[in-house]
């Protein structure tokens, strides 16, 4: 049981500036997945390889989780470099993928060969759990292939600069384009938790990208070709370009997001409540901090804002290391609580959030189970039509105090509007066409704060003794807002405590928050609207899953930089 006073309140955690400073933790989805792979001894094989001399063709990877089989079908295509784009509206890619539920038969492979490369224009069935695509990093992929072909390892600085051979530009799950609904696998022990099927897909795509570059090197170099040295191979992750779609997802999955954040916050509170720590635990913490410092030094981005934040983070981590090195720091009661409070007072937001991640590292046995099951079943969704409006008003005061900080009469606070474009349903964020007018038929309803503010006005003119049911019958425009408010009582971490239609809003804050829960690193914002990141950099390969270091793979540093 976690003491309630050690839990950070939602109004602190769910602020955009803090969300935009989030880091992966032990509970992040990629780490949960690789841990489960190791514990349950998942086995991997490559039953089908059909690639021509230029690397075009099909490869199938199969995974046995003990209870089930899953397969990645990877299709590699020729692509005009001029058509290589990270955007949703692209229509051609270097490689396309499906995660298949089971082992595909020949007829399945043939069916997908005709559909998977077309992505959104193709049609899929409930046998396909995930649809994805990726583009190569042309400069690194060719550099690596050419060097390996000539018998040399690639330049490590160039590897560190890019960090991946391919980057995914979309990973669709949850019933998109005819694929299986998430509910199909929700009860499964292996992939039933949120985004585990997508994370497995990306893990396998990373294997494909590495196998592909070595295949091309062999084709080019023949007997002169070499394979990647294992430390370099491991340091290559898989890139990902993430855009605006994450924001509507986060706002539309209040219960699920609460589960993620609540798990992390309970893990943090558990650690803060530890009365004393062992020497080994202190050593683990210091080792991870040292790796973090190196990793942050290697984190280079062009974005001016993020670059300054990384610089500040580096200085803060040096201060943290100095602080921890002082005598008797761990000999006091509740030493981790003292460190947490010190960090909250002396460090910037990026460092504060990294400390949240660091403090959990030595305590897997206490916290890892919190991240094992994220599952927003319909039963979790709250709707209480009998609730009197007096009670609803109390919930608004308790969970939406932040709305009172915003003047929605100021057009800057409602200056932007989210829409889905008819072009492949790409989410776009543009200026509001009519100042102060909401609810146009094309707007994605993400106007939470504004809606609550208008509800408060309506409540002032209503009989507060009446039920939500009767009020909603007369005022159906507020039904969805009341639904959110009722859910906020039992899922308080599920609501962003800020206005995401304001002119000053930066979507990258929400993207980073989401991606940190996935477990990514090296956030590289390319604008306010999208970011590139690295996934699985440093992650163990199937034959390394039980290595002693495998549990802390996310703190990967450039090979030899720790020597």
């Amino acid at each position: 049981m976690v003491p309630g006073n050690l839990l950070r309140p939602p109004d602190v955690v769910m602020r955009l500036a803090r969300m935009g400073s989030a880091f992966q933790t032990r509970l992040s989805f990629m780490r949960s997945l690789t841990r489960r792979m190791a514990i349950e001894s998942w086995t991997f094989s490559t039953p089908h390889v059909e690639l021509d001399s230029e690397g075009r063709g099909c490869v199938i990877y199969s995974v046995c989780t003990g209870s089930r089989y899953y397969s990645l079908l990877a299709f590699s295509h020729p692509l005009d470099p001029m058509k290589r784009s990270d955007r949703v509206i692209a229509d051609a890619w270097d490689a396309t993928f499906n995660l298949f539920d089971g082992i595909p038969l020949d007829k399945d492979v043939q069916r997908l060969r005709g559909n998977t490369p077309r992505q959104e224009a193709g049609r899929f069935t409930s046998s396909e759990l995930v649809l994805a695509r990726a583009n190569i990093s042309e400069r690194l992929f060719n550099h690596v292939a050419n060097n390996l072909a000539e018998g040399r390892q690639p330049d490590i600085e160039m590897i560190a600069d890019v960090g991946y051979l391919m980057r995914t530009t979309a990973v669709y799950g949850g019933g998109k384009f005819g694929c299986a609904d998430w509910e199909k696998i929700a009860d499964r022990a292996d992939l039933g938790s949120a985004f585990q099927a997508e994370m497995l897909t990306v893990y396998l795509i990373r294997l494909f990208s590495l196998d592909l570059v070595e295949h091309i090197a062999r084709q080019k170099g023949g007997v002169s070709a070499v394979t990647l040295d294992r430390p370099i191979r491991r340091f290559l992750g898989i890139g990902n370009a993430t855009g605006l779609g994450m924001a509507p997802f986060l706002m539309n999955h209040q219960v699920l997001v609460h589960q993620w954040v609540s798990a992390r916050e309970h893990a943090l509170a558990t650690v803060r409540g530890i009365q004393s720590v062992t020497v080994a635990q202190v050593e683990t913490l210091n080792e991870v901090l040292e790796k973090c410092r190196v990793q942050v030094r290697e984190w280079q981005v062009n974005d001016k804002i993020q670059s300054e934040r990384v610089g500040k983070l580096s200085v803060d981590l040096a201060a943290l290391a100095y602080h921890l090195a002082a005598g008797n720091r761990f000999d006091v009661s509740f030493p981790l609580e003292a460190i947490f409070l010190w960090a909250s007072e002396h460090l910037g937001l990026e460092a504060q959030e990294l400390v949240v991640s660091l403090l959990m590292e030595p305590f897997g046995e206490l916290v890892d189970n919190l991240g094992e099951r994220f599952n927003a079943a319909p039963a979790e969704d709250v709707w209480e039509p009998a609730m009197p409006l007096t009670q609803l008003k109390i919930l608004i005061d308790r969970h939406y105090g932040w709305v009172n900080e915003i003047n929605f009469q100021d057009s800057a606070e409602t200056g932007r509007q989210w829409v889905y474009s008819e072009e492949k349903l790409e989410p776009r964020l543009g200026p509001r066409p009519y100042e102060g007018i909401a609810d146009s038929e094309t707007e994605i309803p993400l106007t939470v704060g504004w809606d609550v503010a208008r509800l408060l006005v309506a409540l002032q003119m209503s009989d507060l003794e009446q039920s939500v049911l009767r009020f909603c019958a007369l005022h159906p425009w507020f039904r969805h807002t009341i639904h959110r408010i009722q859910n906020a009582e039992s899922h308080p971490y599920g609501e962003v405590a800020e206005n995401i239609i304001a002119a000053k809003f930066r979507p990258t804050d929400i993207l980073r928050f989401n991606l940190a829960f996935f477990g990514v690193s090296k956030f590289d914002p390319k604008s306010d609207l999208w970011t590139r990141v690295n996934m699985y950099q440093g992650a163990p390969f199937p034959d390394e899953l039980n290595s002693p270091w495998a549990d802390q793979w996310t703190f990967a540093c450039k090979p030899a930089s720790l020597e």
Partner: protein
Amino acid sequence: MKFSHNELKFAVRWAALGRHVPVGLADDLAKAAVGLAAVGIDPLKPVVSALERLGQHHPWGSMSDSFRLSAIEAGPVLSDSLVTGETVLPLNTCLDNPVLLAGYLCHSPVPQSVKLGWRSRGSDCVLVLGESGLISILGDDLETLHVETAEVLSYNSAMEMPALISAEHIKQSRSTAREQGVELSEADWYSLWRLTRQALSKSSEESRLSGAGASLIDSD
């Protein structure tokens, strides 16, 4: 043609928003459509019909004055009423698309068993409800599931009729839908998607610049 629940939910929700349906009611309509599909009833015709009947300036929230209500507005209210016991809809309500009620009531935990019936074109249909929501559907023939206007809704209907869709069939359909998606008419899907597209923003060079990745020079 097979569709996933998620596809159906998205298309219905946005078709409703495009017809100016309030967000909460659009969400409920999408859930109702999925609920209907999961018990083996193709929801597309009743959904499209109900949406097309809505005027540009539909008077949302004025149910007590209406003689013939939109199921899109009355369905959630009726569902909530059956759960809480508070009567809000006027007696002798007449709905434009009563079959949609089956979707709204699919997962409504009605504390005591209730039979909700209607008569249309001389045929009767009864929804049997209980703690787990919709249990079975009784009726004279399947056509009563495709009516577009009920003469009157009657609570605790005493009508005794053969099962049109049995409890066992509903259970089996839900399991199959979860595993394999739902079978829907392709032609009706395009009718629905025509409405959904109205809620999508027209694309232009300017709007393309407001999408992620815009103006990217892909030097990676």
